[in-house]
């Protein structure tokens, strides 16, 4: 299962707000080919994976994304 940590993985400091870039980044996060969709694919593919260490790394990559 997964847990939520109240922190960012990497510190973010926005010097110049840019709505156009923000839109692209939001799509990259939650859009059809974004991080969230990719993470779900990793976490589903690991169920049919025959090697323990690959199951492990798919779990960890999916978690990281």
């Amino acid at each position, binding site marked *: 299962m997964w847990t939520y940590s109240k922190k960012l993985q990497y510190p973010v400091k926005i010097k110049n707000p840019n709505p156009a870039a923000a839109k692209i980044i939001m799509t990259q996060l939650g859009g059809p080919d974004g991080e969230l969709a990719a993470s779900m694919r990793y976490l589903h593919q690991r*169920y049919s994976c025959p090697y*323990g*260490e690959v*199951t*492990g*790394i798919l*779990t*960890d990559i999916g978690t990281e994304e």
Partner: protein
Amino acid sequence: MSEREMLLKRVQVCDFALMDAALFLDTHPENQMALDFYKKHLEMRKAAVDAYTSKYGPLVHTDYDGGPYWNWVEGPWPWQHQEEA
């Protein structure tokens, strides 16, 4: 039920109780009864996690015991039966 399953069940019971109490506390942050409940189960959870991880390996990779071998990717995974791991 094997010892492993029993120790894991303890962690699961504590986690479930903590999750539910957290949902209540999100909207009742000063409720002493709920705070006491949370505290009690948090302590129980810590003991249960220590008991499990010292014998059966990590539940999260930060449970790493400092030893010479990284056993995080070892089965069984939660969806596997004992015999196929």
